[in-house]
């Protein structure tokens, strides 16, 4: 069965200020989409809104997964429905071991009807599965015993997010700059890992500034976001063009979106309190 994640005319505000201004995007299971665009264009916001972050207000439009209204679901309901986001800067959860965190998460995601307090996946089989996945991702087994993201280096955090992706096997995954802050070798490893876990096995929305992460994950579609809208969609060649030549051509073609983007940057640059 082919799953579909459909975003239509999505408008989103934070504290009354518009950030997304009519986003349309349709992804099918097994496809890889690249989402590119300059800073502040709304890429991460789109990911967070799909994942269900409570800090954003959807003022118009819809997100559906196989026809089900995603916006009606809490974040955990979305995870159980098969949506995953690898965060750019995941928070740390002090005192909670990676293995315990993932065992609980995997149980809930694999058994969406599980009630609170019902048993988790058996420890023994879970440990084996986790160990296998970590071997596959060339991760130190010690990782499982560390507290979630606590004291992790930038690279470790990103790999921990990829490990979670591997364990949770979502229908759709949004990878928000999973390459940022990594050196060239680490990006290559991340790219290969994502390909191994996700390529053609789920719908991938890869948010990135570079083409390195796309090396092993050539996108069928490349979307360019500017001023809170997707202003152009193309194939893999568009990603390559943006990487080598930047956004000059795009900016010239969409002056209104450039203005919107600038407004958003100005807003976010204002001091938080007066």
């Amino acid at each position, binding site marked *: 069965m082919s799953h579909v994640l459909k975003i239509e005319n999505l408008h989103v505000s934070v504290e009354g200020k518009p950030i997304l201004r009519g986003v349309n995007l349709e992804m099918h299971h097994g496809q890889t989409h690249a989402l590119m665009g300059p800073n502040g264009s709304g890429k991460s916001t789109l990911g967070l809104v799909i994942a269900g972050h409570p800090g954003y207000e959807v003022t118009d439009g819809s997100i559906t997964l196989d026809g089900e209204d995603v916006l009606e679901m*809490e974040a955990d309901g*979305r995870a159980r429905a098969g949506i*995953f986001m690898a965060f750019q800067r995941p928070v740390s*959860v*002090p*005192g*909670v071991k990676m293995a315990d965190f993932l065992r*609980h998460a995997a149980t809930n995601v694999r058994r969406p009807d599980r009630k609170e307090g019902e048993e988790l996946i058996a420890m023994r089989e879970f440990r084996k599965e986790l160990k296998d996945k970590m071997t596959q991702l060339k991760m130190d087994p010690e990782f499982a015993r560390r507290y979630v993201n606590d004291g992790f280096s930038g690279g470790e955090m990103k790999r921990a997010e990829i490990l979670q992706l591997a364990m949770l096997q979502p229908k759709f995954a949004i990878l928000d700059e999973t390459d940022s802050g990594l050196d060239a070798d680490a990006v290559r490893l991340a790219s290969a890992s994502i390909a191994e876990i996700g390529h053609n096995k789920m719908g991938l929305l890869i948010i990135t500034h570079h083409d390195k992460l796309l090396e092993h994950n050539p996108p069928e579609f490349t979307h360019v976001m500017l001023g809170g809208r997707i202003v152009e969609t193309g194939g893999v060649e568009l990603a390559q063009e943006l990487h080598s030549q930047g956004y000059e051509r795009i900016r010239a073609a969409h002056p209104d979106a450039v203005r919107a983007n600038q407004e958003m940057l100005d807003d976010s640059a204002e001091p938080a309190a007066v």
Partner: protein
Amino acid sequence: MTTTATANESLAFDSAGHTQFLASSGEPQWLTDMRATAWSQFEQLDWPSRKEEDWMRSDLRAFKLDKYSLINPTTGTLADHDIPERLAEGVQPAGVLKTLDGQVIEESLDESLAAKGVLFGDLSRIAASSPEIVQRYLGTVVDSSQDRFAALHAATWRGGHILYVPAGVCIENPLRVAAGLTNGGTDSGHTLIVLEAGAEATFLYEANSAAADDKGLHLGGVEIIVKPGAHLRYVNLQDWGRGVWHFAHQRATIDRDATIQWTVAAIGSRFSQVSQKVSLIGEGAESQVNGVLFTQDKQQLTYNTLQNHAAPHCRSDFLYKAALQDKSRTVWRGMIGVDPGAQKTDGYQRNDNLLLSNQARADSIPGLEILADDVRCTHGSTSGKVDEELIFYAQSRGFTRKEAVRMIVTGFFQQIFDRITIESVREALGQSIARQVREYQ
């Protein structure tokens, strides 16, 4: 195992009641004299007032001593009264003592330890059989004149227990004391622990009511003496019903090159006022004090703590963590006191509070009083709500909001659990905490 269940008649907290209590106790004269002295201190002192720093945030107006009895004629076992024992599981105790409403109802000690001179059991009984030891130490650590509750406790304690470990004796398995309280009852247990030079022991104490909302009164006293080179691990789990008034003076003195690891877990009681002091009196002494507090409803738990450095080259480490729900409140006022001459002191104190509701309140007042000039003392405290970004992160991985909060709370306490080297205690505390977390919006 001996069982000494005697039914007593109920006695009131007044001089007639106290006179009758002394007459019927069958204790040695020196002990009766001590109690009589303490009773006259009690009669002369006023209840603590909010003008005193330790009591500034404490409201005693609803506390009425005459609602409780000096003696409750309760009989039966803890199980008869559905009183749980949370530290029993996974433990092979070297000795067990249980009390019910301040009456020792069960005591036992490994014969091999008794043969080595270890004393463990009913403090009144051992005061009569080994007076030279009990008289030497009882009342030497906690001063009965320091406030009216201390005096009342010293005058009326019952269900007391002693652990005495002779020099060089190491006890592998823990000694365990379980104090049970029936609804409306009084527990006034006294703990006396003496480790002679080079001795080692682990002492687990727990206090439980039958039901979560049971009422009652606890007048407590803990005296701990750790002699040179001795090592004590002491765990105190307080899970009284949420109608219990809990007053306690707890103090340890740690001598040269000796150590104490003192773990407090406080979950129960309506109102708690605990004075907890550790004095490092010999060079190279070390203390580690850990506290886990979890409050709900309108509970108020107050801990006034002191890390007293009375000798040079000592190390004190202190970490209290509190999670608060509903309209509950915690007060921690902690002091590191460094005496003149206690050079090369290494003192640390920290208090972290996690507020799980907007109505909860945590007062955190660290303090330093340093009278030596070559010391290192650091302190810190944090209070904050559960980070919404953490909740969202966990939810994005499939946790429900409640599961996320429970996990975050457990993780918050993990830093203390990591310090607890006794697995059964870690598990029991973890379960006690997990039981408390409720729906949280």
